[in-house]
C-alpha cells in the first residue's frame, strides 16, 4: 500500500511527472531557440539558456501591482504548471504507460485539460488589471478558439480511424492507450493515407496552441510587452516560462504518440542479444524509448515550431483566426471525411 503510494508519488514527481517535464521541457525550449538562431544565421544562446533564465528569475523579487488580486496573481502560474504536469502523465511513452493513469482521461478530456493552462494564464493576466494584459488575454482566448476547431477535427478522425481498425463496439476509440496499442500492431498512423492531412493539421496547430511565433499575437513582445505577462516578475514569471516550455513538450509528445506511435526503439532483440533479461532489459528498453520519444519531439519542434518561427513574421490576431478556421480546419476535415467513408 505504502509502496504503491510511493510509486505513484514517484510517477508524479519524477517520471513522467514534474522532474522529467522540467528537464525535457526546458531543454526542448533551448534547442528551439538555438535552431531558430542557426536558421537565421545567428550564433544563438547556449542550449541550457532556459535553465539559466528560470533560476535567475526565481532569485528575483516579485512585485504585485497595486490593482492586482494577490491570491489569483500568485496562484494562477502554479495551477497552470500543475495541470500541465498532470496532463503529461496521461501521455504514454510508446509501450510504457502507467496502467492506473490510462483509465483516468481520454483524448476529449485531454483537449479540455489543455484549456486549463490557457485559462490560468488568462486569469493571472486579468488579475493584474493591466491594459496590456487585457489585450493579451483577448488575443489568447481568440487563439485558443482558433486552434480548437482543427484540434477537435483531428482527434475525432483519429478516434474514428482507430475505433474502426480495432473493431471497437461502436467503431470509435478515444482512449490514448488503445490508439498507441493499435499502432504497435498496425503501424504508425502517419503511414495511413487518410490520416496524413490530419497529421499536417496537427503539426500546424502546435505553434498556435503553445503560442509560438508567428501565432504569438497574445504575447507580442514588441507590441504589447508580452501581454498577460507584462506585470509579472520574478518567480511567477519563471513559472509561466516553464509552463510554456512544458506545453511545447506536451503538444509535441502528443503528436508523436498519436502519429508516430508503434514499437518504439524496437530494440527487444538487441537487448536480448547483449544478454540482458528481466528488469534490466525492461529498464533499458524504457530508457531507449524515452530517448527516442525525446528525439522525435525535437524533430517535431524543429519542423513544426522552429522552422515556422524562422521563416515567418507575426500574424495579426484576425489572420490567425482565419488561417486556423479555413486552411487548417479544411485539412483536418478532409481527413475526417476520408476516414469516415473508409478511404
Amino acid at each position, binding site marked *: 500500500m505504502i509502496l504503491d503510494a510511493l510509486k505513484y*508519488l514517484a510517477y*508524479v*514527481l519524477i517520471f513522467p511527472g*514534474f522532474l522529467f517535464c522540467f528537464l525535457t521541457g526546458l531543454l526542448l525550449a533551448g534547442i528551439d531557440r538555438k535552431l531558430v538562431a542557426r536558421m537565421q544565421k545567428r550564433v544563438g544562446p547556449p542550449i541550457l539558456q532556459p535553465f539559466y533564465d528560470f533560476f535567475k528569475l526565481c532569485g528575483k523579487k*516579485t*512585485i*504585485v501591482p*497595486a*490593482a492586482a*488580486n494577490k491570491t*489569483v496573481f500568485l496562484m494562477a502560474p*502554479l495551477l497552470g504548471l*500543475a*495541470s500541465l*504536469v*498532470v496532463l503529461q502523465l496521461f501521455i504514454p511513452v510508446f509501450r510504457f504507460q502507467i496502467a492506473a*493513469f*490510462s483509465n*483516468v*482521461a481520454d*483524448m*476529449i*478530456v485531454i*483537449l*479540455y485539460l489543455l*484549456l*486549463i493552462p490557457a485559462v490560468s494564464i488568462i*486569469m493571472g493576466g*486579468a*488579475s493584474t*488589471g*493591466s*491594459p*496590456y494584459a*487585457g*489585450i493579451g488575454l*483577448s*488575443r489568447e*482566448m*481568440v487563439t*485558443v*478558439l482558433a486552434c*480548437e*476547431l482543427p484540434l*477537435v477535427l483531428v482527434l*475525432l478522425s483519429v478516434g474514428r480511424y482507430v*475505433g474502426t481498425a480495432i473493431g471497437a*463496439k461502436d*467503431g*470509435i476509440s*478515444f*482512449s490514448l492507450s488503445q490508439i498507441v496499442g493499435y499502432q504497435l500492431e498496425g503501424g504508425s498512423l502517419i503511414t495511413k493515407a487518410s490520416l496524413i492531412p490530419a497529421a499536417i493539421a496537427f503539426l500546424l496547430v502546435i505553434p498556435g496552441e503553445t503560442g509560438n511565433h508567428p501565432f504569438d*499575437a497574445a504575447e507580442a513582445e514588441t507590441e504589447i510587452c508580452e501581454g498577460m505577462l507584462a*506585470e509579472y516578475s*520574478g*518567480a511567477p514569471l519563471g513559472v509561466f516560462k516553464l509552463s510554456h516550455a512544458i506545453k511545447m513538450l506536451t503538444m509535441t509528445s502528443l503528436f508523436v504518440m498519436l502519429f508516430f506511435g508503434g514499437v518504439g526503439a524496437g530494440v527487444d532483440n538487441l537487448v536480448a542479444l547483449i544478454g540482458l533479461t528481466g528488469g534490466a532489459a525492461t529498464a533499458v528498453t524504457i530508457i531507449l524509448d524515452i530517448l527516442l520519444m525525446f528525439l522525435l519531439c525535437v524533430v517535431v519542434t524543429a519542423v513544426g515550431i522552429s522552422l515556422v518561427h524562422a521563416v515567418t513574421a507575426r500574424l495579426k*490576431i*484576425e489572420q490567425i*483566426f482565419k488561417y486556423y478556421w479555413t486552411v487548417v480546419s479544411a485539412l483536418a476535415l478532409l481527413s*475526417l471525411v476520408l476516414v469516415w467513408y473508409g478511404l
Partner: protein
Amino acid sequence: MLAGGVMGLVLSGDLFNMFIMVEILTFAAVALTAFRNRVTGALEAAFKYLVVGCIGSTCILAGTILLYHQAHTLNLAQLSTLIAGNLDVNTVIAFVLLFIGFCTKAFIVPFHPLAADAHGAAPAPVSVLISGVLTKSGIYGIIRLAYFLFQTMNLGAMQFWLVFLGSVSMFVCVTMALAQHDFKRLLAFHSISQIGYVLAAVGLSTALGASAGLYHAMNHTLFKGLLFLTAGAVLHETGTTDLGKLGGLSKKMPWTTALFLIGAASISGIPPFNGFASKWLIYQATYEKAAETGNIGFAFVTIVALVTSTLTLASFVKVTQSVFFGQLPKECEKAKEVSFGMRFAMSILALLCILTGLFPNIVQKYLTGPAGRTLFNVSAYIDGMMGKGYAQATMGTNMPEAGNRAIEIVGVWNPVNWLMLLMIALLAICIVAIASKYDAVRENKTEKVEAKYSLFYGGEETEFSQVGGGDLFWGFKHNWRHYFSFMHDLHSGIVNDYSLWAVVALALAMVYALIVLL
C-alpha cells in the same frame, strides 16, 4: 405559483391539465418578469413574453383540442395507446402544435430573444427560476410528447429534427451571448445555448444520450442558478450589470468572485466541474450515434458542441475580465462583499456543482440513468396508469418493446483520480515554491515618484486602462462581422417580428412534419 405550475405539469397525466399548468406558469413568469416595474424595459419584456407565450399556449390548446376530437380522451396513457403506430394528418398537426407550444416555453430558437429580455429585466432570483426551472418544463413537455405520447423517437426524421434544433440553439445563442454587453442578458443567451445541448442529447434517442441530456439539464439548473445569483450580487452592490461600467470587483467581493469562477468553469466545461462531466457524455453520445448510424451529420453535432463549449469559455472570460478583474471604476468603489445569506445560498449551489462534477458515476447510477431508461419504457408507464396488461391488450403488435438499454461509454474520465493527481502536483509545486521564497512584495502606491510611472509598465493612467466590455474579442468578431451584423439586424427587439418568427416556425415545422412523419 410558478413552482406550483411546474410541479403540476410534471405530475399531470392529462393533456388538458398540462395545458392549464403551462398557462399558470407562463402567467406567473410574466408577472415575475414585470416585478420591478419601475425598471426601464421590465414592462416591455413582460409584454413580449406575454404575446409570444400566448401564441405558444394557443398552440398547445389547439393541439389538445385536435387530439380530443380524434380520440375522445385526454388521458396521456390512453392517448398514447391510440396514437402509437397510426399517425395521420390530424395527429401530426396536433403534434406540431403541441411541440411548438412547448418550444416557446423552453425558449428554443427562434423564441430565444424573449428569454434575453425577460432575464435582463427580472430580479436575479426570478431569473434563477425562469432559467433553471421554467425552461426545463418546456424540455419536459417536448420529451413527454416525442417519447411517450407519439412514440416517434425511433424515426430518423424526428431525431434529426430535435438534434438540429438543439444544435442551432446552442450555436446561435452562444454567438449572441458573445455579442452582449449586459451581464444578465449574456447569461440568458447562455441558458438557451445549454438547453440546446439538452435537446440535442435527448433527441439522439439513445440511452446514453437521454441520460446525458438529463444530467446536463440538472447541471444547468445548478450552475446557471449560481451565475444568476452572482449577477444579482453584483447588481445589488453596484446597481448595474453593464459590462462596460463594471470592473475590478474581485478585491471588493472575493467570495462572489470565487463562486462566480466556479460557475463559469462549470458552464464552460472545464474539468472537473459538473458542466464538463455532462458535456463530455453528450460528446460521446453524439459521436457514438454518428458511428452507429454511419451518418456523418451527427459527427458535426459533436463538433458544434465542442466548439460551442470553447465559445462559452470565451464569453465567460469576457465577463471575468470586465466585471471581476481589471480596474475598479469610481462608481463601484462603494461596493462591498454581499451579506452572509446571499453568500450561503451561492455556496450551496457551488458545492453541488463540484460534487456532481466529481462523482458523475453516482449521478448516472442513481439519478439520470434510471430516468433515461424510463424514456424507453413507454408500455410500463401505460400499464402503471391504466392497469397491468392494458398496453398489450389495446396496442397488440404496435406495442413498443420495453427497452432496457445499457449505457455504453467509449471514453474514460475519472475526475476523482485526476483531482488527486492535480492536488499532489500542486502541493509539490507549492512546497518547492514556498521553500524557494516564492513571496511577493506589493508595489507601494505612496512611493511613486512621478505620475508618469504610476502604475503600469507603459505609464497608463488607471482610468484609461480598462480593457473589457463588449469589444473584447475583436479578432474573432472581425472575421465574423457579416454574421454578427446579420444577427444584429435580425434581433430587432420588436414584438411583432418575434410573433412573426413564431408563426413562421410553426408553418415550417408543420410542413416538415407533414412531409416526413406521414
